[in-house]
């Protein structure tokens, strides 16, 4: 049997294939490889930068590393202000299902009317809408659990003020962007804020960070700020002031407590105040830090400076008699009178009983320049050296423009203005035996060094007069406090209104120090427009001083320098015959 097909010479294979075909294929392949090589070269070498950039755009992200705002602490390290994490709720209106029943629940959690929530979500063109900022963490967690589509959260910081209204004016507050708006928060905003850091990272498809592209710029947290304020003293001072303002139906009040060793401000409080954690419907009245921003005529509280100057000039001695009868004196056609006329008083008694006539008689023996110099040296008319927003310098006119009557009225505190802060500052002269010390709101360990204004002997002599003013026969026996000797001066000034003085509108002050022998604190109290019958500084402001001194010295651990009459009273049985 023979095959009809010869394998070695298949007719199919026998077809004549042209050589160029195979060559063509080889050439095509070579070309393709060349193309690939070219492309590779392009990607790797020539277009490298472009592709790297594109890759980065897709996977590299710059993450902001927010710096923590520094805490504000009191002198014992207790927190006055601190930042905590709070979630802010935002939405993409287009993504939110408008009839989702969960929206009602969301509105309830946010304490927001449902209609208001719907209104915010109404504008579908916007891609980002804040629903509510700085929601507390537990609420935020519940909202996250609801899982509403289109509602998102963003981590932010919220400032918390545990001390509340007592320290509100000193500490101030920040706005929703964590920037200082008032008080220390504003004054030290730059320092507290710190510096944000950043890092450039590569994220994978799932959004996880897989690599740092370049070195991390670490955030620099704002350093903590330690104030001189003692939160206990602050609270007590605020509370006593608040009580006094309520009792006397006054408009407002302020108090400041100064440590005379270091010059630190231990407490600085104003009433009315506000809660910095809830700042809706705040008024200017509440916000004002009156101790620093309000200036007023200091009234009789200036008299001790005149008395000391008179002693310094050798015009008088503490026991020199001055005739103040009949309680009136006429200068340049105007009459100055005492509220309670006296006869012959010694210099010490002039201060003790706060006689205008006696003070004017001393002042008129001085030149205006001498008076001006002493006032200026005590810090009146000069901006206080505290980094606080809105601190006023008061007003002390140049002595060349003083008329005789003005010189007379200025000796008992009319015709010039000062803030309570300046007044307390000036009184450190008496507490520090004639030295004026700088005050500070920052904690300081070192004793303050002062500038000598009066001689030691005369400052101590006037301090004794201040002690007499709080004793029997003085203007402020109510300033006395149990266990500690005190000294101070009352002031009651009529308020200016327009061009003249208002009828029956007063400011009552008391500025004093304690204990008298070795003063540790200076306390100044001001009550604005007491309106409940009494308005004398000795009746309105002095009790606040008394209670504040009592609490402060005890908190500072100062040993009582006076014997205390025990209050433990036992039932007394009447003796029988």
């Amino acid at each position: 049997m023979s095959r009809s097909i010869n394998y070695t010479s298949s007719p199919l294979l026998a077809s004549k294939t042209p050589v160029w075909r195979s060559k063509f294929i080889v050439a095509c392949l070579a070309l393709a490889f060349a193309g690939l090589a070219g492309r590779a070269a392009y990607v790797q070498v020539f277009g490298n930068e472009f592709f790297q950039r594109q890759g980065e755009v897709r996977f590299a992200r710059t993450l902001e590393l927010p710096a923590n705002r520094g805490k504000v602490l009191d002198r014992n390290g207790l927190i006055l202000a601190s930042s905590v994490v709070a979630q802010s709720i935002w939405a993409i209106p287009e993504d939110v299902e408008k009839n989702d029943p969960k929206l009602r629940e969301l509105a309830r959690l946010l304490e927001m009317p449902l209609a208001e929530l719907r209104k915010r979500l109404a504008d579908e063109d916007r891609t980002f809408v804040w629903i509510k900022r700085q929601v507390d963490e537990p609420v935020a967690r519940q909202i996250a659990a609801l899982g509403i589509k289109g509602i998102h959260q963003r981590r932010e910081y919220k400032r918390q003020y545990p001390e509340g209204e007592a320290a509100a004016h000193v500490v101030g507050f920040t706005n929703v962007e964590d920037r200082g708006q008032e008080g220390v928060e504003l004054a030290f905003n730059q320092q507290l804020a710190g510096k944000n850091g950043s890092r450039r990272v590569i994220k994978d498809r799932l959004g996880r960070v897989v690599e740092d592209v370049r070195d991390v710029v670490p955030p620099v947290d704002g350093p903590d700020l330690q104030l001189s304020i003692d939160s206990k003293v602050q609270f007590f001072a605020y509370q006593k002031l608040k009580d006094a303002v309520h009792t006397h139906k006054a408009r407002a009040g302020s108090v400041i407590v100064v440590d005379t060793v270091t010059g630190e401000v231990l407490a600085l409080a104003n009433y009315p105040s506000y809660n910095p954690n809830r700042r809706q419907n705040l008024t200017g009245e509440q916000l004002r830090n009156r101790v620093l921003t309000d200036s007023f005529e200091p009234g009789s509280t200036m008299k001790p400076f005149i008395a000391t100057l008179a002693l310094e000039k050798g015009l008088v001695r503490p026991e020199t008699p001055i005739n103040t009868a009949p309680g009136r004196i006429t200068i340049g056609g105007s009459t100055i009178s005492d509220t309670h006329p006296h006869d012959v008083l010694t210099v010490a008694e002039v201060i003790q009983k706060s006689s205008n006539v006696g003070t004017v008689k001393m002042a008129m023996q001085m030149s205006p320049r001498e008076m001006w110099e002493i006032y200026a040296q005590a810090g009146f008319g000069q901006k206080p050296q505290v980094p606080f927003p809105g601190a006023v310098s008061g007003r002390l006119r140049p002595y060349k423009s003083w008329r005789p009557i003005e010189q007379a009225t200025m000796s008992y505190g009319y015709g010039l203005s000062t803030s309570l802060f300046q007044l307390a500052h000036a009184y450190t002269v008496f507490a520090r035996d004639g030295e004026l010390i700088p005050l500070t709101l920052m904690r300081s360990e070192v004793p303050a060094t002062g500038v000598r204004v009066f001689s030691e002997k005369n400052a101590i002599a006037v301090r004794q007069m201040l002690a007499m003013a709080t004793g029997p026969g003085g203007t402020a026996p109510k300033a006395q406090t149990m266990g500690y000797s005190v000294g101070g001066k009352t002031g009651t000034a009529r308020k200016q209104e327009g061009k003249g003085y208002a009828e029956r509108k007063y400011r009552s002050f008391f500025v004093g120090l304690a204990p008298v022998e070795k003063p540790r604190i200076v306390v100044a109290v001001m009550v604005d427009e007491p309106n409940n019958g009494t308005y004398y500084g000795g009746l309105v402001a002095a009790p606040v001083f008394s209670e504040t001194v009592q609490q402060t010295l005890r908190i500072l651990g100062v040993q009582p320098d006076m014997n205390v009459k025990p209050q433990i009273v036992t039932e007394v049985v009447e003796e029988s015959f």
Partner: protein
Amino acid sequence: MLLLAVLASAFYLVHTQYESRRLYTAIDRAQAQARKLESEHEQLQVQKRAQATPARVQQLATRQLEMRPVTPGITQYVNLPEAPAAVPAAGGPR
């Protein structure tokens, strides 16, 4: 032979790269956790302080415990037995 070595090395490189990224993610997560705990700690500190402010303490003391503010008038002086003086010594308040 060399080719095999190159291949092995290349695979090992890929593996290491993967491992390093995995670990990096882990460290990043741990750091985030640390930050979160830190902020929680901060929050608790503030809450603790808010519970212990003088205002609150005083309110609780007067309302619930019926305490009243001390005055030096109710100080009790103790005389040390060594010096039984008739005059109350300036001893520490009790």
